[in-house]
């Protein structure tokens, strides 16, 4: 096992609102090893982005409350001063965002924005920084990087802007790259290119990656481990193989079942998970997925802990069902009603 870079322990993020306290993240724990790709999957509002934004302490809301600890190389960055935290942001932990169309400042040249990331964290001449910016743009596959470095963001296409964002994030060789839905706003053909790029660059830059997405198909390619989030908590966590071939949580089954697949009999309509995610203000008692779960039973009124229930230590889930039972019934959910009928 490689050296642990990041350790998140029982992270809780809540927001006070007029309607009550929104528990956006409720007891999330995970670790990230050097060079690893961790995929975090969940639907909108499951707390993926809030988790990541609060890792970097980027949420600036007077009504927010954060508990728990985030250890970066053994140091709790939740306790750092704002000045120290700035040294971490963009240098040790960098982040790219969902919408490349709006994530770059429209009034500054792309190159200057990359240069800004460089000079903020290191002692470097402007000339050298510019050279490095051109190199970075080349590495992320921008053609004619020497002249494109002086372009404004509006002269770049969406895919190119995301490449430029990646170049900017990698400028300081960060240990960790957090990619928050990096492909969601892009065309399907560009999505694959961007994922491939992240996959290649993480080795070149020796960075660990946390990839947030609502699309299991995105993490299937490049993630080593996957965490599935639901209602502010991780409901299943394991190696990619285990998660895809031996999924333990009914919510994961539902997610897998809602991917259209060409290798299975054609369905009348795409499978979807019944019901809506719970309100984060009044969460259901016990297992948070219980109201939508077709397999819920009496015991589900107590919340199951995230522990290993199958063979081996590395595959964790939050479901009371017996492992054998789960293995017997899950195919039906994953393949959908038509296939079963």
């Amino acid at each position, binding site marked *: 096992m490689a050296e642990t870079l990041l350790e998140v322990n029982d992270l809780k993020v809540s927001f006070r609102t007029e309607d009550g306290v929104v528990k956006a993240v409720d007891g999330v724990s995970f670790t990230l090893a050097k060079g690893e790709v961790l995929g975090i999957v969940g639907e909108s509002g499951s707390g993926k982005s809030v988790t990541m934004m609060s890792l*970097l302490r*980027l949420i600036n809301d*007077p009504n927010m409350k954060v508990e728990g600890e985030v250890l970066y190389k053994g140091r709790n960055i939740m306790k750092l001063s704002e000045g120290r935290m*700035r*040294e*971490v*942001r*963009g*240098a040790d932990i*960098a*982040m790219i*965002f969902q*919408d490349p169309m*709006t*994530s*770059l*400042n*429209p*009034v500054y040249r792309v190159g200057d924005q990359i240069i*800004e*990331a460089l000079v*903020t*964290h290191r002692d470097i001449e402007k000339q050298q920084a510019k050279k490095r910016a051109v190199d970075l743009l080349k590495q992320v596959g921008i053609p004619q990087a020497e002249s494109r470095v002086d372009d*404004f963001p*509006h002269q770049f296409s969406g895919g190119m802007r995301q490449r430029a*964002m990646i170049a*900017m994030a990698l400028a300081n060789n960060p240990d960790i790259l957090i990619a928050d839905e990096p492909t969601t706003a892009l065309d399907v053909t560009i999505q694959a290119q961007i994922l491939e790029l992240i996959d290649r660059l993480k080795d070149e830059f020796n960075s660990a990656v946390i990839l947030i997405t609502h699309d299991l198909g995105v993490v299937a390619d490049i993630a080593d481990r996957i965490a599935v989030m639901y209602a502010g908590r991780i409901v299943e966590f394991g190696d990619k193989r285990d998660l895809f071939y031996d999924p333990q949580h009914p919510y994961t089954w539902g997610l897998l079942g809602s991917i259209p697949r060409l290798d299975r009999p054609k369905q009348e309509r795409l499978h979807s998970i019944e019901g809506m995610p719970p309100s984060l203000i009044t969460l259901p008692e016990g297992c948070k997925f219980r109201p939508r779960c077709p397999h819920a039973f009496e015991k589900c009124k107590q919340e199951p802990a995230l522990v290993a229930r199958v063979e081996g230590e590395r595959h964790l889930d939050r479901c009371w069902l017996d492992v054998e039972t789960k293995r017997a019934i899950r195919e039906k959910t994953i393949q959908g009603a038509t296939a079963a009928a």
Partner: protein
Amino acid sequence: MAVFVIRRLIGLIAVLFAITVMTFLIFFATPGVDPSRQLAGRNPQPAVVAAIKHQFGLDRPLPIRYLLMMKRLFVSRDLVSYGNQALKVVPAITSATPVTFSLVFGAAVIWVVLSILTGLLAVVFKGTIVDPLLMILALIGISMPVFWLGEVANLITQDRLHNTFLFHWVPPNGYTPLTANPWQWFLHLIIPWLTLSVLYIGFYARVLRANLLDVANEDYVRTARAKGLSERRVLLKHMLRTSMITFVSLFGLDFGVLVGGGAILTEVVFGLPGVGKLTYDSLVSLDLPVIMATVIYGAFFITIANALVDIVYARLDPRIRPA
């Protein structure tokens, strides 16, 4: 750039033509303004009126009269006031211009600096008492009419507190040219500057604060923070510049209007013989040649100010630069 300038010049000429024709027509369509009656004095003989009409070309058709006036204004530049034959219009404007410029430039510097400062402070201290306090002050500034504020300033600095250490340095109302005595120029103008800028400081500070708060939620501001930039740099480099776009367009318009004679109340209250005062006097006596000249002068500066705004716009936001 050359294309831009040429297009603007054509636009300027079109605006000036339209505005002079309109002023001209409105003037002659207004009842009771027949200048020959004014010029002829009290109870004139019809023959005298006719003679004056002929002398001033007022018996000729309107288009000819318009062309004659434009010729005397721009070509021979010897147009004189209807009311006062000794008042040559062109020199009157050129001697009033430096006064207005001095007043408006100084006030503009004060209001730009102070409103940006106030807007930034309000955003930095958002969530504390400082922000609403500044905004209430701004609102008070906007609510005070400039003529009233000017009179109060006069009352305090010229009368009530003039003999105390606070305001004994304030010279009597009036104007000293910059070239004659820079220090006296400054002393004469400081109170008018502050008076004129109060409204704009309040207004611009509120506009800037609103724009800054808008921009604060933009994705690229989050990106800037994620890069590890200091709050100061995020605010000054990434938020302020995009927030300045509304500010600049407002400034162009207000500045153009003020230079073009809009500072009339301030000029009258402080006895500054500027273009505003000239306009005011000519309007009171319905003196077409002077009205015409001040209108052209005003339109010229408003158009120029708008062209400058467009240039500054393009500097601020590369997306609107012509390719």
